């Protein structure tokens, strides 16, 4: 699950990490109020504020979603403009307001699951502020890696080694402490990824006006492990329902994995790999899948009915392909669910059903009795569904 920058920063602060103050505004007026406060802060070396769109996609900077303001009026105006944006199709409903940083140097630091070593891996670079993927291509030597110990986490020495390798210079102690804090954040929240970009040395002003440097987390991106949300009170609340399709919410309720796509052939499959394969074969047969939908193992009739509703809510869908390979899942259960779902559905969409494996014979009987179009092989099913979507009789 992706969460907003502001929420990610709250999780960092909870682990004692240094993050400059911020406020979240849903209206230009709220943004103005926050700006007034940050502009008046004597520690704010730039005497400006930054206003950042809170959206769950990358590239907001290029889309005009990150801008500075030097006065309260300007802040209100800029916030209004950003709150009117759509970034990659997502409306901006919140902005983050904070002091604009006087950046001395930008770094990159993240921790993520490394599948190959089966460990947590830190990625650091003295080339911060740009996408790490870009650094990886253009200047791979500028990236350093350090694995956490699978049993001990990140011992102090490893945090120091990482800090020295990244090159935090006189800020190495802060860098090491932040690395340890990122790991704590990861573990405390069962995150997949905790990414700080930029992690920056910024200049602030002491009460007497003298400048002081410190290493802070200027931006933060955290994704959470969906499998672990159940054991973390409060994290589910960080889900941005605004940014989600109502279909996603419905899918979660029935324990379905549903991803909406742009095509016109709805797919209902058991198993993620087979679901992807079904999409691939639809495409190969000349069609476009309307969704990825995995009904999971052991799906019963009510889940099948819910899956059908989800598919049909997409008005683009012109045909449906059901592909079930029974293992845990019983074919007859799915067949009954399909019969029931079709009885309730509002609009009539051609459906091609293929059920093999456990209780396939019983399923075939039920489907035949209900006059479903069936197919023996997956390739055949895909071809029939594509033909149906194109209005050709199958």
């Amino acid at each position, binding site marked *: 699950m992706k969460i907003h920058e502001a929420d990610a920063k709250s999780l960092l602060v909870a682990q004692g990490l240094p993050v400059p103050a911020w406020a979240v505004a849903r209206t230009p007026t709220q943004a103005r109020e926050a700006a007034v406060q940050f502009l008046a802060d004597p520690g704010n070396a730039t005497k400006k504020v930054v206003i950042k769109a809170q959206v769950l996609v990358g590239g907001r900077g290029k889309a005009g979603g990150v801008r500075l303001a030097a006065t309260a009026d300007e802040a209100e105006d800029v916030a209004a403009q950003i709150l009117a944006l759509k970034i990659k199709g997502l409306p901006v409903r919140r902005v983050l307001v904070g002091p604009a940083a006087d950046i001395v140097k930008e770094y990159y630091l993240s921790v993520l*699951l490394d*599948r*190959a070593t*089966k*460990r*947590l891996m830190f990625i650091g670079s003295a080339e911060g502020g740009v996408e790490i*993927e870009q650094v990886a291509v253009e200047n791979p030597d500028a990236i350093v890696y350090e694995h956490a110990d*699978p*049993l001990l986490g990140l011992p102090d020495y490893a945090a120091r080694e990482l800090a020295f390798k990244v090159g935090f210079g006189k800020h190495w102690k802060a860098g090491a402490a932040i690395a340890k804090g990122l790991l704590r954040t*990861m*573990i405390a929240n*069962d995150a*997949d990824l905790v990414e700080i970009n930029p992690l920056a040395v910024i200049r602030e002003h002491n009460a007497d006006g003298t400048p002081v440097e410190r290493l802070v987390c200027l931006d933060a991106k955290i994704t959470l*492990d*969906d*499998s*672990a949300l159940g*054991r973390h009170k409060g994290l589910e609340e960080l889900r941005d329902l605004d940014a989600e399709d109502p279909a996603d919410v419905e899918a979660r309720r029935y324990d379905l*994995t549903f*991803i909406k*796509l742009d095509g016109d052939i709805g797919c209902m*499959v*058991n*198993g*993620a*790999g*087979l*679901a*992807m*394969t079904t*999409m*691939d*074969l*639809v*495409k*190969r047969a000349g069609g476009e*899948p309307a969704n*990825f939908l*995995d009904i999971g*193992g052991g799906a019963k009739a009510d889940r099948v009915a819910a899956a059908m509703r989800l598919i049909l809510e997409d008005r683009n869908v012109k045909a449906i392909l059901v592909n079930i*390979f*029974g*293992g*845990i899942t019983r074919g007859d259960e799915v067949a009954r669910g399909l019969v029931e779902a079709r009885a309730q559905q509002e609009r009539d969409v051609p459906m091609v059903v293929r059920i*093999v*494996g*456990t209780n396939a014979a019983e399923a075939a009987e039920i489907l035949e009795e209900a006059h479903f179009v069936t197919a023996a*092989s*997956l*390739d055949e099913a895909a071809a029939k569904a594509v033909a149906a979507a194109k209005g050709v009789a199958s």
Partner: protein
Amino acid sequence: MSILIGRDTRLVVQGITGREGEFHSRAMLEYGTPLVAGMTPGKGGQTALDGRVPVFDTVAEAVRETGANTSCIFVPAAGAPDAVLESVAAGIQTIFCITEGIPALDMISVVEKVRLAGARLIGPNCPGATSPGRAKVGIIPGSIHREGRVGVVSRSGTLTYEAVQAMTDAGLGQSTCVGIGGDPIVGTQHIDILRLFAEDPETDALVLIGEIGGSAEEEAAAWAAEHLPDMPKVAFIAGRTAPEGKRMGHAGAIISGGKGTAASKVAALEAAGFRVAGSPTELPKLLREAGYRG
């Protein structure tokens, strides 16, 4: 012979008295798997499956009393990592963890413990393995198999069944089929299974089923190119139409930063001498074209 499981397998099922555990244990027993023990804490001394399988409180006891050397875990996600550790501590050498939905971080220390003990973990979130005619461990339907000499390895569940069914329908039997699981942290990866197949005198050809995300297929392909240049090899990769940045069901199946695409995997496999199918049903034909005469 076969890999992972075979005639010497003596299986203990952890969580045998649960709904899933009991259902699949029955299927394993009916397939002929040497299922010698079950384990459910607090039910030691009872029996499962109509009195056919003794149940123990601990895996250690099951090992001591029945000589179990392989375990299969149907314990819910909250207890499954601990169940793996219990098997490791009891000296079990081959552990199948079927359980899905285990938080990824929980598995990091567990796979390390498995590694330190020199044991092997398949999964979690995997369908298990079948050595047709000998034993099946996990949830793969036994009926789709046929005895033979093709080794199958896959990250998926039902997609594996699809591929295996296609093989069986074409008369191509399997030595062992292994589903390694779709989670980001799994105990055993494609390359590890290829290493085992390479040493199995009864495996003459390979089917590799992969999907988008990570780079495990690429690594396996490179290894196979070097170590199994002459063995007929075919592959299928799911997710050619998957959009970037979306997690396609499996926690491991996500394309990020332009990495882990189906295209890059297909290219790596083809470069390594694999024939890559456009549909699972094409696998038997490609195997024949690759020179497999089994």
